[in-house]
């Protein structure tokens, strides 16, 4: 698994690519967490549209990141979950906790305060 980082004005887009299982989470853990921990990071959009699969290890990694961002008062939004991934996050109650938008535009609006 890989993440790609795109800068657009004051927004940081983090694009996830691959299967977000225990193995994938380990691949990106270090890079992702250092990004989320950095208080200087701008608003972060998490683009999940290229994640075809996610297990509980993906969920755990996402939660770690969100906690890190919230700790320094940053803003974030996830968008682009496919049906299979959405079902998992709904079933585990994650949709009530995360900031999620149905499109990139709406995700941008949600992070722009």
């Amino acid at each position: 698994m890989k993440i790609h980082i795109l800068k657009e004005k004051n927004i940081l887009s983090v694009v996830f690519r691959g299967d977000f299982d225990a193995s994938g989470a380990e691949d990106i853990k270090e890079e992702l967490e250092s990004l989320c921990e950095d208080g200087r990071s701008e608003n972060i959009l998490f683009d999940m549209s290229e994640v075809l699969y996610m297990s509980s290890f993906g969920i755990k990694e996402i939660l770690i990141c969100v906690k890190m961002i919230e700790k320094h008062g940053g803003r974030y939004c996830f968008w682009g979950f496919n049906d299979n991934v959405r079902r998992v996050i709904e079933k585990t109650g994650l949709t009530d906790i995360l900031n999620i938008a149905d499109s990139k535009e709406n995700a941008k609006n949600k992070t722009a305060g």
Partner: protein
Amino acid sequence: MKTSDGLIYLKIPSNKFFLGLVRKVITELAEKMDYSQEDIAKIELAVDEACTNVIQYAYTSEEKMSFKGGKDEAIEIKVNINPKRIIINISDKGKEFDFGSYKLPDITAHFKEMQIHGLGLYIIKNFMDEVNYERSSDGVNTLKLVKYIKK
């Protein structure tokens, strides 16, 4: 094509590296049966979570990325199919799992406290029709997962 009866046997080293392989085998099999796309995704995830639990907890390996996989570090996956259902038995020789005392967690409360242990088992229990755990006298743990084909 009609689903025929069959037994498929897969043995992998206890390593995250092979999770993708197991998922491919399981989904390929489920796709040949009469499961909906939703049920295929559920079976795929449940099997992944079960194997991940073995890798993370039953065998608490210090050499996560090694390809050791000796006889005491193996996960055996036996899949039994017929036109009505799929049974997946996942076995290991690692630590005993306290399945009996396990309760479905209050996931939202857990997230707030960042205590997210048991999430994998929560998913397995939610997504499969039957889930049973057994430990044999010679120390083999077996998690049995069953999913029926909806009429």
